[in-house]
């Protein structure tokens, strides 16, 4: 998942009013009816939320209902890689907020003006308008620096703009203001508010690399949400069978459920990154107890599965929950690069995406094109489908078709363009002769990678590649594994800007630091996945300090 997507998914703005509660009660019928209606076909996990928000956008007329509907729709569409639709929703939210600003200022209602201004800022941030968003949120805080929610929206805006330290500072202000408010007049609503702001602070700190404080805060939030202070909200959620998760939550119960979901996911991800797999799995399972089709938790459990069977099932569940998560797709591609799976003949969208990925992994690119074209006709706005179809086209040598695919996510588009550029490359010159060693340039290694990806090497070139040892300056990534004293364990890195990895972590005699230029002599075994992208699979021969 891209940084932008993560920000959008995680950005937390929470709001409640009595109108929202009334709307939630109206929506209760749909909550009860929806599972039966959707039971006919496999649904994507966010279908229900999208349906609810579209209904809210169509029927509600007040500013905050309209705004939250479009912000949520944008966020939900973004999680499904429907960038163009998401952009349209954010633009609608921005227009609504700007109109509200104008109206409020005309009528000298500075409270409304401040509110509209801060939401205009958030919408502009989601549209990628950094300067406008910054100017607007600064304007809002002039009028409402005593309002914790304004600081929380400030923090969310900065997270969307990938400014984690600014976000953390604003979130600290929100927490400070909310703690004082709670001391003055304790209530469940204010406790919930405070936990929301602590969650915001934790996510910003995590982004900023301040993991210890972030983890402590998240543990505090999750523990707090499980106290009896929130019994009434839990009972209300159970009575109403509520399960919806929104980034802009309306109604205390929805805010509670959304916060519990997001804070647990964030905490579990931190445990996972810290190597505490058991605790991470426990928390991901906790997420699934309140939302059994949570796509993020299911994807994580697939990633962390102990057995092949468990992993296969978890991947199936995760793809059914959100077939279009690029993070999940990369995880699955990585798994497929090292494991063979039985062909699946499921009919859900998740099964179809998995089938396409499996076909691509097996080199059945023509079958994959058929699978992906069928998906593209049903999801023409989906960037991930376009991206997969384009990469499959490149594998088929069809650059024209690949260029025609619609991809709006910049990272994905750049990756396709890069592959297209590499696809025209011939095999590098050092495979032409009978040399047994060479010092390739970065461009030659990229040509080699492209040729291997497209299986364009001739049998003679394959023989030459088996014979030749190459020497390059390598920069290694830090390895999670520790070696014995006097040894360095290394597994992956880059040579001349080309990603590589070994088949497993290798222990080298001597002390070699990561991120330091080292002289590596190696053989090329093939292509592998390194950090979600293609790289060279190498067999190390010798590692020395750079001369």
């Amino acid at each position: 998942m891209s940084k932008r997507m993560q920000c959008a998914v995680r950005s937390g703005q929470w709001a409640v009013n009595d109108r929202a509660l009334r709307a939630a009660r109206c929506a209760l019928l749909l909550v009860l009816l929806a599972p039966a209606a959707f039971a006919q076909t496999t649904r994507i996990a966010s279908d229900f939320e999208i349906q609810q928000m579209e209904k809210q956008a169509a029927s509600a007329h007040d500013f905050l209902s309209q705004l939250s509907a479009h912000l949520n729709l944008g966020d939900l569409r973004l999680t499904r890689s429907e960038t163009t639709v998401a952009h349209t929703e954010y633009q609608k939210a921005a227009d609504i907020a700007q109109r509200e600003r104008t109206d409020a200022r005309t009528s000298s209602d500075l409270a409304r003006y401040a509110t509209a201004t801060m939401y205009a800022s958030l919408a502009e941030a989601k549209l990628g308008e950094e300067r406008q968003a910054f100017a607007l949120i600064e304007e809002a805080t002039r009028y409402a620096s005593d309002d914790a929610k304004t600081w929380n929206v400030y923090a969310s805006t900065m997270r969307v703009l990938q400014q984690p330290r600014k976000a953390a500072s604003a979130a600290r202000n929100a927490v400070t203001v909310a703690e004082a408010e709670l001391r003055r007049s304790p209530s469940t609503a204010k406790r919930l508010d405070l936990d929301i702001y602590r969650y915001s602070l934790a996510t910003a700190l995590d982004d900023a690399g301040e993991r210890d404080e972030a983890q402590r805060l998240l543990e505090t939030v999750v523990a707090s949400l499980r106290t009896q202070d929130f019994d009434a909200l839990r009972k209300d959620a159970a009575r109403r069978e509520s399960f919806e998760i929104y980034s802009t939550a309306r109604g205390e119960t929805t805010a509670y459920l959304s916060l519990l979901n997001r804070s647990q996911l964030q905490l579990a991800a931190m445990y996972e990154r810290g190597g505490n797999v058991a605790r991470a799995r426990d928390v991901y399972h906790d997420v699934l107890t309140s939302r059994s089709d949570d796509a993020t938790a299911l994807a994580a459990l697939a990633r962390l599965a102990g057995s092949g069977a468990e992993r296969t099932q978890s991947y199936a569940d995760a793809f059914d929950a959100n077939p279009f998560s690029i993070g999940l797709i990369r995880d699955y591609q990585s798994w497929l690069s090292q494991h063979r799976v039985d062909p699946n003949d499921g009919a859900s969208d998740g099964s179809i995406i998995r089938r396409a990925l499996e076909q691509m992994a097996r080199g059945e690119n023509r079958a994959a094109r058929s699978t992906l074209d069928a998906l593209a006709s049903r999801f023409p706005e989906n960037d991930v489908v376009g991206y997969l179809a384009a990469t499959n086209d490149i594998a088929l040598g069809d650059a024209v078709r690949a260029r025609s695919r619609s991809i709006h996510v910049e990272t994905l588009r750049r990756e396709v363009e890069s592959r297209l550029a590499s696809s025209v490359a011939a095999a590098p010159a050092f495979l032409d002769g009978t040399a047994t060693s060479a010092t390739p340039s970065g461009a030659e290694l990229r040509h080699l990678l492209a040729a291997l990806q497209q299986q364009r090497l001739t049998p003679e070139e394959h023989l030459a590649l088996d014979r030749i040892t190459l020497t390059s300056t390598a920069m290694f990534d830090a390895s999670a594994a520790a070696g014995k004293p006097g040894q360095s364990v290394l597994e992956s890195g880059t040579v001349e800007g080309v990603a590589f990895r070994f088949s497993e972590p290798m222990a080298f005699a001597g002390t070699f630091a990561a991120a330091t230029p080292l002289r590596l002599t190696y053989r090329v075994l093939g292509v592998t996945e390194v950090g979600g992208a293609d790289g060279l699979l190498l067999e190390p021969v010798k590692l020395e300090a750079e001369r």
Partner: protein
Amino acid sequence: MNRYRNAGSLRHEEALLARGVRASRPPQPAVPRPAALRDRECDRARDARSRRARRPHSVSGGAGRRRTGRLAAGTPLLVLLLALMALPLAAQSVAVTPQGSFVVAHDGIVELFASNGHDRLWRSDGVEYPGALVAGESSIAVLDPIANRAVVADIRTGASTSMRTGETPIDGAFVGGDLYLLERDARALERIAPDGTRASISLAADPAFLRIRDARLFVYSRVAGVIQEIATAPFRVARTVAAEPFASDFETDGRTAYTVHPRDGFIRMVDLATGKPAGHVRIGAVPVDLAFAGSGTALSAPMLAVADPSAKRVWVVEGKQSVMQAFARGFLRGLIGLGLFGGRESKFRTGVDRVVIRGPVSIAYDSSSGTLYRFSKEKIEVLAHPVAPGAFAVGPSGVAWWQDGTLVAQKANR
């Protein structure tokens, strides 16, 4: 009681409705009156407001004189201004050097213009998003609060140095050749010497305003609610004084600190010598910005101009008087705060939220529409529209603003 609630939070609004309190307060009618900043004045002001609210009130000032109460919507100019309200304005900054020349930062460059506003003296590399422009005797600094960068340029030659700063540099000041940067989200004040040597001190939460008086630096931290006086040699927090938090502006004359609070409509004072509160007064409907309109003398209090976008006015009030000043002006008058400057408020076509006064030039600005006004006791005129926030400055030679890629200057004495 809160007079001004932020309707941004639905949760917040719900709590208010549950208590039968309106989520937002209707704008207060404009109340032209003199005011001195004293505790007792608070009650008087409240009484006066309630009395005046029941009757039509006259408005002084040229444009405002033709209207009563709230500005009628639908006039052609107003429609034009509001239609342009949502236009994004690129970040541009203008400042005046002590020598009276104008510095402009825009589009990744910095330019210095002569005091006539026409002759460009030099052009140099700037920052991507220019925020505050700080002018010293021999250098200027342009700050980028998004990218955390500063460019320091020599005023004489334009030779510039780019540097990284702490998180969110929002203001700065030159003292004795050293540049002091207020880095809000780092909660720090950093000192950068001409030779590049750097030092930093920690500040309280949300340090939002930096002011300099007589080579002394004062920082007001909005969320913490403190004023910190910073000594420059040695570089340290000399003392910390409690103040009301959440002000939208802060000014000081070195003796008294003034903060303005839009939520409850108060201006509050702190005696910096004693560190004690020195009174407060309610002013206008939603006062947002402060400026000294007159520095005061041995016999008179300083004058404060207060921008109030809700009332579409700039109020002029007296600041705190010393006992000696009060005595000299008549003990009774000083004690109860009856000033000599009644009726000096002005009404604008749109709600102004910034006010800058230098000598004979008084400027007000509406951030939402980008409208720049020049005003006096007798007259209000629109100078330009739209002008980006920060893209205007007032100096001894006059006012200048940056509009459509051009610096426009108007002399102080037209």
